[in-house]
């Protein structure tokens, strides 16, 4: 019962997100809009109920289960992308290496700067 009440809150926020997406005509999925609205609502309220925390934890822990059917599809669309695979693989490998490097370098620079700034304050 407790988890169901939390689940209802998540479903209601999802439906609200869908409503905003359709009514405002935003090119963003209803789930994302619902997530943003849920986060802001919690920030305004200043606390999260146990039932909502339990329901969200439950869903997040089976996230892998929920995305698996989509991943299975990868093995059945291979021929659809014949000729694109080299581009896809090179883009993923080189692109990920570059973006990981950029993120680490930026964060390192900025946190050392902040630490130095804090000493001056």
């Amino acid at each position, binding site marked *: 019962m407790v988890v169901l009440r939390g*689940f209802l809150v*998540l*479903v209601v*926020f*999802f439906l609200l*997100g869908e409503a905003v997406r359709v009514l405002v005509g935003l*090119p*963003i*999925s*209803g*789930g*994302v809009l*619902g*997530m*943003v*609205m849920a*986060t802001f609502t919690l920030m305004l309220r200043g606390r*999260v109920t146990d039932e*909502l*925390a339990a329901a*969200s934890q439950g869903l*997040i822990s*089976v*996230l*892998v*289960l*929920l*995305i*698996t*059917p*989509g*991943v*299975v*599809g*990868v*093995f059945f*669309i291979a021929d659809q992308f014949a000729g*694109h695979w080299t*581009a*896809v693989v*090179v*883009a*993923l*490998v*080189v*692109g*990920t*290496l*570059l*973006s990981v*490097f950029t*993120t*680490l*370098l*930026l*964060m*390192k620079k*900025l*946190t050392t700067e*902040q630490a130095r700034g804090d000493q001056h304050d």
Partner: protein
Amino acid sequence: MTDQPGGFNALLAAWTAGPMLSIGLTLGAFIVAQWLFARLRRPLWLPPVMIAALLLAAVVAASGLGFERYEAGARWLTVLLGPATVALGIPLYQQMHHIRALWRPIMVTLPLAASLAAFYALAIAWLMGAAPMVLASLAPKSVTAPIAMGITEELGGSVSLTLGGLLITGVLASLFVDWCARWLRITDDRIIGFALGLNGHAIGTARAFEISHTAGAFASLGMGLTGVFTALFLPLAFWMI
């Protein structure tokens, strides 16, 4: 042949009349994958989602079930991705104090790094002559799956290709963060965790929780912020082009 009593095809028809066969197979593969992953001592390059998908693909192809019929039933599970995406907002709220402590570096790095994560891959794929549909599928490659699937649908890409790209990106990010952090001599778990979540979404976040609790918290933060940022700006950027 199809209506022969007791025949395999008749059984398959009865089982696939509802979604239960697909649900059962997916649940089974998920549980076996968790077990195998633990038995193999949690290899960085083979996360549970990859094991589960490989098992399912083999069963779906070998049994004659076919991907279309499997997917039709599995939709009963995938609809839950909607509320699951909303659920990501709760840990995001719970870690708000982490954002406050390190908000300046995070707020500068996030938009730059999240844009570059999409840009590097798109630029390389474009230079190599990939089709627009492939580009749309690769754009959300660093975003957590439920959000990425929504973005790809908005952009008109292929959800399956996106998920394949996501899987590869998550695994690669876990390896590359390890190498680059050593090379740049970074030992701060907050930075390592943030980079794992920003680039490697849920797979990177799972890896971060193996390093330390702080790394895990910052990975969830990086994953959540990248998801929101990319979901808000990528469709708008695509719109303008």
